[in-house]
């Protein structure tokens, strides 16, 4: 299940494909869907020294947020140049809605 341009990306174009693929590998464990397909990634900004991911969750009471952030950091670690810092920022604005889900994710969920 892939989704082209599922989130805004700002940074060097050669890194884009690898970062998207890395984030696609981070999976919501209960849904068996990538966080990209669920629409949890609001954007990625890459500068010379840092890769910044803006992330949301479907629920503020979700206890697995730290695990998902750890998974993002682990996957991105192999996708960005060595020495670049990885920062994952959690936001609740705007709130997540099902409009952000990919077509493939919606199909799997019976839309």
């Amino acid at each position, binding site marked *: 299940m892939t989704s082209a341009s599922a989130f805004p990306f700002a940074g060097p174009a050669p890194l884009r494909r690898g970062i998207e693929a890395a984030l696609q590998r981070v999976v919501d*464990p209960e*849904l*068996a869907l990538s966080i990209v397909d669920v629409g949890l990634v609001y954007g990625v900004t890459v500068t010379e020294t840092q890769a910044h991911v803006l992330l949301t969750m479907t*629920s503020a009471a*979700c206890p697995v947020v*730290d695990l998902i952030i750890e998974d993002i950091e682990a996957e991105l670690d192999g996708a960005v140049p060595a020495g670049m810092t990885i920062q994952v920022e959690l936001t609740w604005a705007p*709130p997540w809605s*099902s409009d952000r889900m990919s077509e493939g994710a919606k199909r799997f969920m019976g*839309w």
Partner: protein
Amino acid sequence: MTKPLFGLCVLTLLLAAVAGGLLRVGVVLPGAGDAPWLGYAGEFHAALMIGGFLGSVIGLERAMAVKRRLAFIAPLASVLGGLCLLRGQAAAGAWLLVAAAAAFVIVNLVVVRRQFAAHTVLLLVGALAWLAGNLLFATGARPAAPLPWWFAFLVMTIAAERLEMTRVMRRGPEVGLLLFAVLALMLASAAWFVASPASGGLLFGIALTLLAAWFGWFDVARRTIYAHGLARYMAVALLGGYAWLAVAGLAWIGMAFGLPLRDTALHALGLGFVVSMMMGHAPVILPAIARVKLTFGGWFYAPLIALHVSLALRLGVGYTDLSWRARGAVFNAAALALFIATIAGAAWAWRHQHGAVRVREIHS
């Protein structure tokens, strides 16, 4: 309190609650003899299981989500409350559970302030139900009076999480409204149960049965059962739990008409629904709250199947044959022990696999 000590206390409360449950069906844990704690564990079985164990785990889970140090007061107080009950300090234990629930209500207010949504409001109402049950327990109301409130706490916590998950499916606003109506009936019946156990229990059973229908019809598990690995395992645990929830609802209705279904009413709900749900979510929640990585595998199905089969034996065959009720309860305990062993094995497997990867990396 350090994390390992907290984990040890939570595990102690679970094991003591199980031992107390076994004592209630006439089975004395080997080696426990006539230890005073065992008597208290039998007397406070429900308070230990729901408040001491599950309340602490849920409180810890929510504290991890809100990331505020003060939020950990709730699970700390419920653990201490459970330990006091085990020592026979009933009043101290009960009031610590009240304090835990009050702190938990505040934590849920933080969650609602952060995200005002249907499911976060339900979590808050669930916390209030726990507080109501604990107040009834602490003020010495009729022994059964807190039970519907305690179960409402667990059921609403689960319902809130499931409602949140339905957002990934195509659902109209009527789906949420339907759930609110059923849960409102459940809360009203819990309140009515305090004054009139028969009619309150009847309404409580109707609410549980309707809730099982809601879960069975609308839950995301109906889709994720077609996934693979962990997602499918969770769906199996959920759907199995919903079937037991329906059984529990019917048993509460039957009990209101005088049928001897108390064991079914309490344990189809507590073990069949809640513990099945817990087993389903543990591979995800435990790494989040205990920071222990687990390798998921097909072996996770073994304790889950053991739980459901042993419960069917206890509540089915055991309905007419009390010796089978006791045997079934022992098998329930064995299923839980198998589950703990499975978790320990999965943690070991993860360390073994990832340790091996690191060794390969070093030598390559």
